[in-house]
């Protein structure tokens, strides 16, 4: 915690704009696009595919290989300042010809803007996109979940493992359309494999024991423990 905490007032960069209010009568398709979309097109013409406005939200399709550069520019540029990564997820459509889509939801607090980025990954090719972890540390678990559920590899992710299913899970990627609802194995085999997993595979007892982590505890908790409250050793 070396970096100082800075307060961001929502909308402080969007001076001159009217105060925000809940939009009414938003059309399903069409309407005013997020101004970031046009700037993005000017900045990355070779990677920009198209944009569409659905229910007032702008979705920009970009080439998957450029996603890290696009996100980094959106984060760093003074006129964009997308400082909050809301979500990373993926969509697979029932149409087998339709490519799989990876979705990034970005929020610019200073400009009060919301932008949805999509990258299309054709089926039959390796599902790979660059990780946005170098820009947003919060992408760590979001991308792990996306990998766990869809099998998409985020290149550059520091620790790409399963997060919801256990690490030895061998039935595949549950949110893919070709995954049967009840899994691939029999119930007995699923239970046998689940029971033979080791819950402490990642965290050793040393990590879990309060006494060993004494130096890392907050100051008030250390005082309380030093004053006679035992840790169980």
């Amino acid at each position, binding site marked *: 915690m070396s970096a100082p905490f800075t307060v961001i007032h929502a909308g402080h960069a969007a001076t001159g704009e009217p105060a925000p209010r809940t939009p009414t009568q938003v059309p399903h398709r069409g309407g005013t696009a997020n101004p970031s979309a046009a700037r993005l097109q000017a900045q990355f013409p070779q990677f920009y595919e198209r944009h569409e406005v659905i229910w007032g939200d702008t979705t920009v399709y970009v080439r998957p290989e450029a996603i890290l550069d696009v996100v980094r520019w959106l984060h760093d540029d003074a006129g964009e300042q997308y400082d909050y990564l809301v979500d990373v997820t993926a969509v697979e459509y029932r149409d087998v010809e339709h490519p799989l889509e990876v979705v990034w939801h970005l929020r610019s607090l200073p400009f009060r803007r919301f932008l949805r980025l999509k990258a299309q990954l054709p089926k039959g090719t390796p599902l790979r996109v660059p990780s946005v972890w170098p820009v947003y540390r919060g992408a760590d678990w979001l991308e792990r979940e996306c990998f766990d559920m869809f099998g998409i590899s985020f290149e550059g992710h520091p620790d790409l493992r399963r997060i*919801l*299913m*256990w690490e030895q899970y061998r*039935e595949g990627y*549950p949110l893919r359309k070709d*995954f*049967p*609802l*009840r*899994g691939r194995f029999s*119930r007995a085999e*699923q*239970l*046998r494999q*689940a*029971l*033979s*997993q*080791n*819950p402490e595979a990642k965290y050793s*007892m040393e990590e*879990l*024991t*309060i*006494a060993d982590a004494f130096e890392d505890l907050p100051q008030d908790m250390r005082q309380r423990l030093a004053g006679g409250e*035992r*840790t*169980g*050793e």
Partner: protein
Amino acid sequence: MGLAPRPDARVASRAAGDATNDLVSYDPASQEGWITTRLDMLVNWGRANSLWPMPFGTACCAIEFMASAAARFDLARFGMERMSFSPRQADVLICAGRVPFKLAPVIRRIYQQMPQPKWVISMGACASSGGMFDNYAVVQGIDTIIPVDVYVPGCPPRPEGLMYGIMMLQEKVKRERMSDTSLRDELDPDPASNLYIPPAVIDELSEPFGNSVHQTRSGL
């Protein structure tokens, strides 16, 4: 269980020719009180009225369970107000909610850490059968992992339903007999398989929890 008159009181009443007071005398002088009962009945009476639950709440059933423990429904009437958040001091494992496969080894280990005598209530449709979650991630009934004494139906059950299940469990406890040697049998997994947890490891897992360290099941 009952109150028996002093033997000499019976003799005295018979000598007086009082046929209506032949067996039981309610004379205060004779009520010095000694009780005859079967020992297992006395033990069961104590156990049934001081069951300490280990709440294993994973879903909305746990909300109903909390409502059962709160003032309106008041589990304290059944001697169950003391929630045991360590399995070492628990008598009843109340599994309230769905159990995903990832949690299966955890609930099994919690059950193994509980000292005998112990009982299990499976609360709600999901814990009992998987409920509506007939999918890849959810255990289809916790009785595939641990033995269950009482199943409470409902989605989720109302507190009255849980209390009915608790009273059924009390009935079951009261009918236990010490002569039944199979009562506390536990099936341990084959030590060669990786389902088996050695007793030392079961003991070790409770280390951070206060004085639980000294209440190990294996006696190590």
